[in-house]
């Protein structure tokens, strides 16, 4: 009896550790949840504009999209909440955070701070910047009748994970890079008319708030634009277009898809990417780059100063497409293509390094590599490594390899 009573008392005491109370209870009715999967953040005059989108529904109806401005992210979300009392916004499954270009240009520290502090958002959520557009546009208009921005971004993420022309870095990745290097990269996306739609006007409610959901959303009750205007808008889709470079806490430049291949090689996150070169007959040859790595080594002068950075890159590619069938019987034909591959890779890497120098933004983490090589000498360099970048000599050497010609006449193939 005493034992049981003691156990009961201990359990009651443990209950106080659960964090549950009348106010802070985790209990939610499952069927009332509106699962938000994408959050868009825009800069607005009064503070911030928040767009939210749910995922696609199994019954084929369009995803719910909501928008509200506010002085802060919290107040904007609270405003949306007050208009969606029938359903409870559930932000814990937010899988993508999209930043408008203006918002990124005006500083993202506040947004990153919100992501870190919010109990509903994880810091491993991938971030995207809408190149030349707003997050509201992306969240409210991307997708068709049954798919929304969440599904499109999911596809984008899977695509960039496989390909080497971008990568969806998470909020924690960006925070780490900003803290360590003073700058970082964010996946850039661009919204454009859907190819499937062929540029025709979208019918129905897709791509905009519609039906019951739109009636409740702050968007349709005075948020941004009327329902008729939205009906006129085209269905958009989104695609990755490289990276946005964040220096300090602001967007300062974009890296296009071609340069992004160089970023991938320097960061050792090479995916499958295509490089078009020309053979000695000026025939275009598409090389599929699928393996590559880089070794960056600082070269120290005798006086302890940083003489230069020696970057050695290995790149291996297959021939994916060749105009006219190629000339594999000719001696040195493959060697010529290999040289072209090395040149193309070198150009891309050089351009990225040059951009880093120009911007004085160490988004490649070169300073960190130097520090890891010799911390004492790194400290002796003094100052911010980014400021040393413009005067830094960089030697790039590329070792290319054509692994497979994929030609039936080729004995190696």
């Amino acid at each position, binding site marked *: 009896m005493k034992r049981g009573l003691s*156990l009961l008392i201990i359990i009651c005491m443990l*209950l106080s550790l659960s964090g549950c109370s009348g106010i802070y209870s*985790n*209990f*939610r*009715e*499952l*069927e009332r949840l509106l699962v938000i999967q994408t959050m868009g953040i825009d800069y607005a005059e009064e503070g911030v504009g928040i767009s939210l989108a749910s*995922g696609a529904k199994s019954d084929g109806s369009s995803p719910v999209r909501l928008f509200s401005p506010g002085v802060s992210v919290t107040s904007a979300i609270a405003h949306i909440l007050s208009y969606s009392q029938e359903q409870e916004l559930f932000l814990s*499954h937010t899988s993508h955070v999209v930043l408008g270009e203006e918002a990124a240009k005006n500083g993202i520290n506040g947004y990153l701070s919100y992501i870190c502090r919010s109990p509903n958002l994880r810091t491993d959520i991938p971030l995207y910047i809408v190149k030349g557009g707003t997050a509201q546009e992306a969240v409210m208009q991307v997708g068709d009748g049954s798919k929304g921005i969440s599904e499109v971004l999911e596809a984008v993420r899977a695509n960039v994970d496989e390909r080497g022309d971008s990568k969806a870095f998470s909020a924690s990745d960006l925070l780490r890079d900003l803290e360590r290097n003073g700058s970082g990269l964010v996946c850039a996306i661009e919204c454009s008319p859907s190819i499937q739609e062929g540029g025709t006007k979208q019918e129905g409610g897709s791509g905009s708030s519609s039906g019951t959901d739109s009636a409740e959303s702050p968007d349709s009750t005075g948020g941004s634009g009327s329902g008729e205007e939205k009906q006129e808008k085209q269905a958009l889709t989104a695609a990755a277009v490289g990276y946005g470079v964040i220096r300090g806490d602001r967007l300062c430049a974009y890296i296009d898809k071609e340069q992004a291949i160089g970023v991938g090689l320097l960061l050792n996150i090479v995916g499958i990417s295509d490089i078009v070169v020309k053979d000695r007959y000026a025939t275009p040859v598409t090389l599929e780059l699928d393996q590559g790595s880089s070794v960056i080594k600082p070269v120290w002068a005798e006086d302890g100063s940083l003489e230069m950075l020696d970057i050695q890159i290995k790149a291996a590619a297959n021939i994916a497409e060749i105009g006219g069938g190629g000339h594999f019987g000719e001696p040195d034909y493959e060697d010529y293509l290999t040289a072209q591959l090395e040149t193309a890779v070198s150009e891309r890497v050089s351009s990225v390094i040059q951009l880093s120098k120009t911007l004085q933004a160490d988004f490649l983490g070169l300073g960190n590599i130097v520090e890891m090589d010799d911390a004492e000498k790194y400290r002796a360099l003094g100052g911010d490594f980014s400021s040393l970048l413009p005067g830094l000599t960089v030697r790039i050497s590329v070792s290319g390899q054509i692994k497979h010609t994929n030609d039936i006449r080729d004995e190696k193939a």
Partner: protein
Amino acid sequence: MYNFQSFYPGPHPKKTPEYDCDITIKNLKDIFASCGDFQFRTLDFGLEGEIFPEVCWLDGVVSGDSVSQDIIRPLTDLLRSRAQSAEECARLIKEGLVYSYSPNERTKMDDVVNDLTHGHCAIVFDSLKLALCFEVRSSNVRSISEPTLEKSLKGGKDSFVETLRINTSLVRRRIFSPKLKLVESNIGRKSNTRVAMMFIDGVADQAKVEEVAARLDNIDVDALLSTGVLEAHIVDAPLSPFPQLLHTERPDRFAMYLSDGRIGLLVDGLPVGVILPASFGEFMKVTGDNGMHFLVSNSLSLLRYLALILSLFLPALYVAVAMYHQEMIPTKLLLSIIDAKQDVPFSTALEVLSMLVAFGLLQEAGLRLPNPIGDTVSIIGALIVGQSAVEARLVSPIAIIVVAVSGIACYTLPSQDMGSAIKLCRLLMLLAAIAAGFFGIGIFCCILLLHLAGIDSFGVNYTAPLSGGQPGGLFRMLLRRPIPNRKFRNPDLNTPDRRRQK
């Protein structure tokens, strides 16, 4: 032979002797008054015909042919019945006048009554106040058949029956050694049920043997007609829902456990053997494990433990996740659960609880009814009612899947008793999950572990081999080595002879 511990007899001790009177036919008739099957016959015995021993028996319990042929006929043979006095008559009978392998001279009425009820025929000498009893048990017993609950693929095809002596012989046929000891006792004020304790001398821990014997001796009930009565009176934690005695209907499994150093109990009238001590892990093993390759049996063992976890945790986890921790499951799964739950009018908790109750009802209905009807009920219940309930949006399909998977997983547990305990715990865990989500589940798990770790089964902790600080406990519980590598017996059993093989 054994120094059985004496116990405090309790407030209402059994009256001993129960029949404190002389052995006379009159007293026997008084004792068996209103017993229609009590039969007796007075014999005119001796050359002068002045000796009148009474032969008595319980009809049906003894074999009528044996009584006539082996007892009465020799006694009435004039050439053989040359005794001059009752003493000489008794001496002649004991020396082989009647055809019986087990003459017992009884001077206490309790013994005579006991013998009569256990299939003996008694020759009563009023003048000597003694009786000579001979076993002439009726042979109308159920024949040995295949086990019904523990199917055997490669092992023996026989199973225990209701007759104690047949059961002990089945075990003897597995262990041909005089070291296989058999200690019998009678339990039950009214039933006087014979219980046999079997163990292998030198292998079983002597302290445990004495402990079991003492506990058996201390049982003072009206009747021992089921193993439940036995279990309730000899286990260490009778209030625990978890089984603490292993039951088996297979003599080969019984013998295997005896050779491990455990103790077996056989009860007259029950076609099951009881094994002790038994820890939690033993209830997860099946006899067929030893007949399979160790990799196959290990994979099946892991599958059974997975089934245990599914059975115990799945409904509670589903309810906890659906009610409190929606952020913990993949987004697509959450969306499909929400879609499935959209038009269901009941809360998740009520839904799962009602499904568990419905599942229990179906199971009970299937068990109580004859096989063909039981199958029909299952089909109607599971398919028609279940499907209709989903179509009518009374329950969500995922709730049905969760409860069904949990129920099916429970059926894979080798022990029905353990399955029942798990079902009870599943319900309690579900209530804890409804009350406090994962926190509730965590608290219930702590209580459950505390409870299990607090149970001792005849000196062996219930959670052994996980407890006790022996290295590799988890490995030994979940997996088994190849048979040639199993050199030693289970150390938890404290067997004097530790080595199992060279």
